[in-house]
């Protein structure tokens, strides 16, 4: 491996809208280049978390190196960097793209360009990647490759007439794709003689090796013993091993040099030291400047995470610790709720990230969780000039101390067929969207541009979008900044007691509606007690909505026949068991389900 002809390396990624067949194409490329025999091939090799395979999405960037013998008789090294496929992971996507020299754009022959297609392709073009399109799923009866080709040219403005027509699923046209990779994607630049400059695009914690840095060597070289420094975090370490990516395994090699994609281990204990986007350099012979584009990733969405069984708090802490080893974008700190006891306030990149972490905690660590309504980070400007970044509504200062508040807004792009434009615009209006403009993609489709407050889209926006467009709308957004907003804290009082875990920040205009719906929902979730329970929504101590859970009048099991009391006892046991899963607030028992159900105040 010592001799490596830089001109025979191709570093590339695949970009696509979700479900357009990105992972399947990746599998085919791996299969056709003979890295794995089909016996070893498991569907979608690169998505190796169970969760990823189940959801059909890529959460963590995956990379694989394979060798292709091209028609010109030469062997080429392909480094395929599979990027995460969700808007929550946009920054990670951008760093993965920065590690590539080219990108394959996969477009579904039936569906054509979607919002994420555009977002991802623009991202790729922004990084000066050579992008070439392939039209996938041409074997579908509804495939319209010619229409899609024109659409790609018209909308994106890249040449598409000779795009390979393929079916990744059925292995049609894969050879053509491989040749196109050789022809169209440029070989990497850089020189092994320059000082080391390597881009971290991902990292992984391994309990034996410590952190494994995934990187692209832009300039210079690195080998065992090199003293390296992460330029942004300042962490230093001595390299223990370098290597490249086999299918699902790490293959050590002598050295990594300019143009190559591979991994470095250096007994680093924490992924926090190896932030995605940071530059690795030689501590003894540093490069002049870090690579551009590094930024610290901040959590966008926060929520409280509590163990359903209070005694499991230490288990939850351990689980979060372990997850964080591998996921630098997960933040958490302990917090206490009067209603839910001890738990953590956790920060996530977005709602999908939140759901993934929650699912992994429940599945991999066997924890039963109660989560509070997700919120965003608000900036609270106090009258004394202090600015607080508020992640937990309970910490909102007294209104008298607040000068004004700001909330994060995003610019969103929604791709929709023209018949649904009206209903989608209505939805954006309801969510306090600011209309920025609309572009027609072709006669039947349009791209709507809106500025939306983040807190309006983290709940159920995506679901609402889908349901109002019969599943056709697609959606992409990026954080734009903060804007001043009329925000209030909505409190929920159950039997006159404020339930901290149910409080949230909401725009003044939506407070009444949200409060009313919360109360209705809670009324259905809270079982009747021996006394009447008022459920109230209040803003600043003023009640704006109320529902009442009527007192239980009757709970008798009358028939008890022939002396068979076992069934009766079972019923009582069920009743008692149900009680155990309740949270006590004042003298009201609130089922854990209630805390979760208010997260989804669904449409209608």
């Amino acid at each position: 491996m010592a001799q490596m002809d830089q001109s025979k390396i191709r570093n590339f990624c695949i970009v696509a809208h979700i479900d357009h067949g990105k992972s399947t194409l990746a599998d085919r490329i791996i299969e056709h280049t003979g890295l794995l025999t089909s016996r070893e091939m498991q569907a979608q090799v690169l998505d190796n978390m169970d969760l990823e395979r189940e959801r059909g999405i890529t959460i963590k960037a995956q990379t694989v190196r394979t060798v292709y013998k091209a028609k010109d008789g030469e062997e080429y090294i392909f480094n395929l960097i599979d990027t995460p496929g969700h808007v929550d992971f946009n920054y990670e996507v951008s760093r993965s793209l920065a590690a590539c020299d080219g990108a394959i754009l996969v477009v579904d022959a039936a569906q054509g360009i979607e919002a994420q297609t555009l977002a991802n392709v623009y991202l790729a073009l922004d990084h000066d990647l050579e992008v070439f399109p392939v039209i996938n799923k041409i074997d579908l009866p509804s495939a319209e490759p010619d229409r899609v080709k024109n659409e790609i040219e018209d909308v994106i403005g890249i040449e598409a007439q000779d795009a390979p027509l393929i079916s990744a699923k059925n292995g049609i046209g894969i050879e053509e794709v491989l040749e196109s990779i050789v022809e169209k994607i440029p070989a990497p630049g850089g020189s092994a003689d320059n000082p080391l400059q390597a881009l971290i695009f991902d990292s992984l914690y391994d309990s034996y090796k410590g952190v494994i840095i995934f990187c692209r060597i832009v300039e210079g070289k690195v080998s065992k013993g090199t003293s390296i420094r992460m330029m942004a975090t300042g962490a230093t370490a001595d390299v223990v091993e370098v290597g490249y990516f086999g299918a699902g395994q790490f293959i050590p090699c002598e050295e990594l040099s300019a143009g190559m994609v591979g991994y470095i281990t250096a007994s680093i204990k924490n992924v926090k030291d190896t932030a995605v986007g940071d530059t690795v350099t030689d501590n003894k012979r540093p490069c002049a400047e870090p690579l551009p584009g590094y930024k610290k990733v901040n959590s966008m969405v926060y929520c409280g995470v509590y163990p359903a069984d209070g005694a499991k708090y230490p288990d939850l802490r351990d689980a979060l610790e372990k997850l964080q080893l591998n996921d630098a974008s997960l933040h958490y700190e302990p917090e206490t709720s009067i209603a839910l006891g001890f738990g953590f306030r956790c920060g996530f990149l977005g709602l999908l990230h939140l759901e993934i972490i929650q699912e992994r905690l429940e599945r991999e660590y066997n924890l039963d969780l109660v989560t509070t309504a997700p919120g965003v980070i608000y900036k609270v400007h106090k009258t004394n000039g202090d600015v607080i970044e508020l992640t937990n509504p309970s910490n909102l200062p007294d209104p008298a101390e607040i000068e004004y508040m700001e909330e994060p807004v995003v610019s969103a792009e929604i791709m929709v067929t023209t018949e649904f434009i009206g209903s989608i615009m209505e939805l954006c209006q309801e969510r306090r969207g600011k209309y920025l403009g609309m572009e027609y993609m072709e006669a039947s489709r349009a791209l709507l541009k809106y500025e939306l407050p983040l807190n309006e889209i983290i709940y159920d926006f995506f679901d609402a979008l889908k349901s109002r467009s019969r599943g056709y709308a697609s959606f992409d957004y990026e954080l734009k900044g903060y804007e001043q907003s009329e925000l209030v804290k909505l409190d929920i009082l159950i039997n006159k007691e404020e339930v901290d875990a149910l409080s949230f920040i909401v725009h003044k205009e939506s407070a009444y509606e949200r409060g009313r719906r919360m109360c209705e929902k809670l009324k259905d979730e809270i079982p009747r007690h021996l006394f009447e329970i008022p459920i109230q929504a209040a803003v600043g101590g003023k009640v704006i909505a109320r529902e009442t859970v009527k007192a239980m009048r009757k709970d008798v099991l009358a028939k008890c026949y022939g002396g068979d009391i076992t069934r009766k006892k079972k019923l009582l046991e069920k009743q008692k068991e149900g009680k155990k899963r309740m949270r006590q607030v004042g003298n009201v028992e609130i089922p854990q389900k209630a805390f979760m159900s208010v997260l989804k105040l669904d449409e209608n």
Partner: protein
Amino acid sequence: MKTDKRALSVYIHIPFCIRKCLYCDFLSAPATDEMRTRYLKCLSSEIERESHKYCAYKVRTVFVGGGTPSLLSGNEMKQLLECVKLNYDVAEDAEITAEVNPGTVNLRKLEGYYEAGINRLSIGLQSADNKELQCLGRIHSYEEFLQTYENAVKTGFNNINIDLMSAIPGQTVESYQKTLKAVLSLNPSPTHISAYSLILEEGTPFGDNPPELPDEETDREMYKITDEMLKDSGYHRYEISNYAKEGYECIHNKVYWKRGDYVGFGIGAASLVDNVRFHNIADIEEYMGQLEKYKEISLPELHLKEDIQSLSVEEQMEEYMFLGLRLTEGISEKDFFETFQKSIHEVYPGLIAKLKKQGLIICEPEDENGNRIKLSDFGLDVSNVVMAEFLLTE
């Protein structure tokens, strides 16, 4: 006659029905004459082969329930009870009840039952409104009930219970009130009334396909007028759903709540003997097959019982509480202590005081040794909530 014998109650299950009611989840099935004859033979065989275990007992009550026991002819009933009396020491004054469905008995049959030794009838009326009866899938009309009742009185039965049901689909407070009035105006009036509200059980047509029931307020109103009207007519409520005239409380029923010993015969029948609970298998073919195979020999022990559960002290205590509290007389602190050698307050620290504060129970001084603890009126309404509190085991 030895007087130190322990009391035993006997339950006999007759699992046959002409047609199953829509709400019923008890064991029953339609049956041919031949099947019924076979079953009764097996039943006698079971009663006989089990008898050696109960030599030390005196039978105080017998209850023939179902299903529809009144599908038995007078003769069959006679043979069945004779079998019990031959093999067990049945007290002279034992309470012997048979459940009777209107529409299945005529005067002759009732006379047969009377001669067989039945001294208490429990008639399943449910409602005096024919539309409601139809809705429940009952096989009889109100008029047929009247005929049955008249015949029962004529035969000489002077201890009669009537089963009533509230919260029937389509039932109104007015129609329910009419049912109550109809029952109270019978001459002579029944000595005992069981008033239940309809509960939708899983696995029944009603449970699988729930009908629309009267709302909770209506249900509650019915419940209240039951209590008021029956009390006004000289009945006292001695158990959550049972009302009786002075001296006519159902002894057999009270055995269940007071955890007396009882043994059940026939398929699915439940028993509690010496703090061991068990019940018979539910499969009729399996039941009859075993008994027929070993008809002539009393060994080996058959595999007719299942879920045999020897109750721990905790289980005994929780049962003592949640069953005992069904009776309006409640439970006695002193008796609890004598039964378990432990104070109730030690077993349930703070609970009595808490429930008292919530207005669910009341404590009345019994003697210098302690109180009686009983459900308040409110506690009776929400008895499940109270009883669940007394569970000790996980």
